[in-house]
């Protein structure tokens, strides 16, 4: 069973006046089949956690460890992490002009699965996954994220989640910028993947709205670069009522 273990993780970014520490000792264990919601105010460092786990070059890990089934994730390149089973659904997916969605998906699936998927079954697989996310088939011929609406970008991220079947899925503010219908469709997609029982999910969000659709097993409050409180789903209700005020009195990290 896949287990992601984050121990005392410290991460800095290069700022104008030298490195600035954003993550200040994060400890978290995510097991396959579990869903963890990471909730926190803007600037608390929760997106930094997501991008650091995926290996974005902007972030420097200064101490601590991240392992996936004992393997040192921090020693892996970005693409090695993805092939090892770590998936990051991005808040702001990047446009890749001139590269079609279908070409992109097939290239990614080939890389992650270690061999090119058989064309016939692949076409069917993509078609079904797109239909489940209420995506027009013509979508496959568009260039990656180019001219996509906010909702289309997020659906495209979840489409990749469904096709690449990671063991650890990190969803960074997947709910942001979605209207109610889109939020429901995207959440259903995430739930289909979760129901397989084969993915550990790290749901990074500012709002409790998405938790109406996706029930977390654990909720962690993130503030000042670390987890300051952990609990069950009921903690989200408390945040819904009281907000983050109690956690940010010391001042946010940015």
């Amino acid at each position: 069973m896949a287990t992601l273990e984050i121990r005392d993780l410290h991460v800095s970014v290069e700022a104008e006046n030298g490195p600035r520490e954003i993550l200040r000792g994060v400890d978290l264990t995510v097991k396959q089949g579990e869903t963890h919601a990471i909730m926190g105010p803007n600037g608390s460092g929760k997106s930094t956690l997501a991008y650091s786990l995926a290996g974005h070059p902007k972030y420097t890990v200064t101490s601590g460890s991240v392992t996936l089934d004992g393997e040192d994730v921090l020693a892996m390149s970005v693409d090695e992490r993805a092939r090892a089973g770590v998936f990051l659904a991005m808040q702001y997916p990047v446009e890749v002009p001139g590269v079609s969605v279908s070409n992109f998906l097939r290239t990614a699936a080939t890389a992650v699965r270690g061999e090119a998927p058989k064309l016939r079954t692949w076409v069917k697989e993509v078609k079904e996954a797109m239909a489940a996310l209420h995506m027009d088939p013509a979508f496959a011929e568009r260039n990656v994220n180019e001219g996509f609406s906010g909702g289309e970008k997020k659906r495209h991220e979840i489409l990749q989640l469904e096709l690449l079947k990671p063991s650890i899925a990190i969803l960074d503010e997947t709910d942001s910028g979605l209207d109610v219908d889109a939020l429901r469709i995207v959440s259903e997609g995430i739930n289909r993947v979760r129901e397989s029982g084969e993915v550990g999910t790290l749901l990074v969000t500012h709002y409790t709205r998405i938790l109406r659709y996706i029930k977390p097993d654990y909720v962690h409050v993130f503030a000042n670069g670390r987890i300051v409180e952990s609990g069950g789903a009921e903690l989200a209700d408390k945040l819904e009522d009281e907000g983050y005020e109690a956690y940010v009195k010391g001042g946010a990290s940015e």
Partner: protein
Amino acid sequence: MADVQNTPGATTAGSIEVGTAGAGAQLAGPGTGRATAAAQPVDARAEAVASYDVADFPVPTGREENWRFTPLHRLRGLHDGTAEAGGRVRVEVTAPAGVSQETVDRTDPRVGRTGKPVDRIAAQAFSSFEKASVVSVPKDTVLTEPVRISVHGEGGTAYGHQVVELGAFAEAVVVIEHTGDAVLAANVEYLVGDGAKLTVVSVQDWDDTAVHAAQHTALIGRDASFKSVVVTFGGDLVRLHPRVVYGAPGGEAELYGLYFADAGQHLEHRLFIDHDTPHCRSNVAYKGALQGAESHAVWIGDVLIRAAAEGTDTYELNRNLVLTDGARVDSVPNLEIETGEIVGAGHASATGRFDDEQLFYLQARGIPADEARRLVVRGFFAELVQQIGLPDVQERLLERIDAELEATLS
């Protein structure tokens, strides 16, 4: 009412240099038929010449506007009269039925019809070639298969002259492939008859020792359309001069270009569109990628809209993608407008570095860095290829691009 845009956006970083001359700069020099304005370097005035005779051009020094980006010492004497013909370049034409191929003397009336050479190398080529190759598509003939012209260098210096002629309402695709090793100076003339449609794909896939300088001039008839796709991958130094002149109103020119400069390569494309006739259109889009030390791309886009050219619609664009340190781009769009009674005129030039966020996004989906890089560069070119509008040509070009990227980005 004229819609004049001037949006030369350029990101500069590291060793990238981008020169941009704004709209309104006086265009002069070769082929414009007038002397250079005071704003231009004094030396350029000496080159405001067009002639069939090489003796009418002084030997360039490298300080002239037209030569300042070109490493003259790598031209193997093409520019100063010391390059003596003696090499071998094999030209083979494969054409579908109905197309005539001839080898003619310089006295043939079709030779030199698009105008005079505008720089010393083109004039040298014109003064030095022995026989010209003429490919003619008779009027009303619509070809379903392309005409293929293979130009293969077997070493040494050569001077060439090629004419492609389409009669009225003829339609053809011509693919010219340059391969092998040569020091080649040439003129290529496209005579596009009234209502005819000519697409030319010129691929420069030379060995990396080759030197190639050529003037490509299209003379576009009434309501005719000319589409040019220039693809430059190989060669030590390639300097092409695609030019468009209009013989009558209603003509349309689309000039697309792709280039990929590797370490040490100098790839130069100098375009000139002479709008001297009313109601003609032109659209230019060139995109290039560069990688490696001393890789150098030059793109000059000159568009002149003369007073008589009312109803002109023109746009030109150049984009460069710099993949590594040590590459250099000089991109200079020039637009001069002598009449306000036009439909539109604009240009844009931008040079940027490889976008690391794109790389991260693709890598985060398991795609290895090399492959991700290839995908992004392929996409950069594919965006342009998609505009060509001829599926066969597009497919072949993408295969070409894939092969080039496979060889250079791994």
